[in-house]
């Protein structure tokens, strides 16, 4: 196992600059879950010059929609959804102070350029490890768009949420560098 770096939210710029692609992290604090439909609504509010339902400054958005919680559980199974669908909306959220994203899969050039400009991190959580990841969620509440069901905006209090830095704040990208070492 690699060295694990413990980080907490909200993220500060110094912490962000120290994180490098390939670092394993454990995240503690509040993070927000938002996926396709919530991003669309965020974007529409921004276009109309209106205020977002959550303050993004220093925050992390987890691209995810949980299963309903079983009785006695704080949260249902929860893992990352594929991030590229959020790409068209992401730069405008980064401009508004978003500092971290947790998802899986490729990001567009526009997103990576905006991450470098705004000093932000893209973390990967392990897709399909949703029962395991849920163990790090201690509290869960819907904070916006309840009508969207699993696509609502959730605030999770997480302890030691496992993730890997895939794209860091200078644009190093594990998805590009690491597979090359194993290509035959």
């Amino acid at each position, binding site marked *: *196992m*690699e060295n694990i770096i413990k980080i907490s939210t909200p993220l500060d710029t110094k912490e962000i600059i120290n994180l490098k692609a*390939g670092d*394993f992290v454990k995240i503690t604090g509040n993070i927000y879950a938002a996926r396709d*439909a919530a991003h669309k609504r965020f974007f529409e509010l921004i276009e109309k010059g209106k205020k977002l339902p959550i303050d993004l400054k220093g925050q992390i958005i987890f691209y*995810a*929609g*949980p*299963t*309903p*919680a*079983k009785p006695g*559980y704080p949260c*249902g*199974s*929860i*893992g990352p*959804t*594929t991030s*590229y669908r959020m790409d068209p909306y992401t730069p405008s959220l980064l401009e508004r102070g978003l500092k971290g994203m947790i998802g*899986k*899969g*490729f990001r567009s050039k526009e997103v990576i350029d905006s991450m470098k400009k705004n000093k932000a991190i893209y973390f*990967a959580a*392990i*897709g*399909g*490890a*949703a*029962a*395991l*990841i*849920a*163990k790090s969620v201690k509290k869960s509440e819907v904070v916006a768009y309840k009508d*969207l*069901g*699993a*696509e609502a905006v959730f605030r999770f209090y997480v302890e030691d949420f*496992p993730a*890997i830095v*895939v794209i860091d704040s200078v644009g190093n990208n*594990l*998805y590009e*560098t*690491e*597979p*090359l*070492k*194993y*290509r*035959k």
Partner: protein
Amino acid sequence: MREVKANQIKDKIKELFLRANYHINPDLMNRLTEALKEETSEIEKSVLKMIIENNKIASKEEVPICQDTGLAVVFVEVGQEVHLVDGDFTEAINQGVKEAYQEGYLRKSVVDDPIFERKNTKTNTPAIIYTDIVPGDKIKLLVMPKGFGSENMSAIGMLKPADGPEGIVNFIVETVKKAGPNPCPPTIIGVGIGGTADKAMVIAKKAIARKIGEHNRNEKYAAMEKEVLEKINNLGIGPAGLGGNITCLAVHIDYLPTHIAGLPVAVNVCCHTARHAEGIV
């Protein structure tokens, strides 16, 4: 004739969707354990250990393996001597799906209209149902909760007969290469060759449910499965796309007769969870 009540189908569908979403199939779990031994990347060993641990937690606690509990795909083989009574066939399947997803704490991921409203149906229905009429007096059900991270990476190629085996292999490998980390590798790749554009994809999807370790009975197709698997693993994508030797766990190819002018190739991509369950009514 044998009478089957619609409720028997509903109950079996419900049971199968719950089982598929909580309990990973043993053949897949064995393959993941082998993959952990074969993987050389330290990052990827950590990833595979997390995936294996996750599957154990889900099964033990009966919680969903993945939060994307999928679109409900159902393959049905209805014996022609079955007489269905006390209800409607399609309704029974959808009711079974609804009960599994509502009572089993599974995520409802279906929107009614794909473009404009995209309103959640809140029942995870309608299911996608494929029905074949076969000899006999039983109903065989195969359910596949299909996640869309991997489904979105699927592709159909209407190749030319002149493209031959090489063209087919390249098309499959390119599809997987383009998908990179998106479909939650290590994947299971279902391939359907021949038939029509639509039928090729249906048999590709069904091929995902083949037991891991079993190859196509036609040895030329079995050899192609092995060749494609090796080429995919040579891409270096690795588990979760973080670089490694194990990008794909199995390639399953099925084929059908096709038109003199055609060579349809459908690639249906499935994540490392590849959920499916079978039962008989």
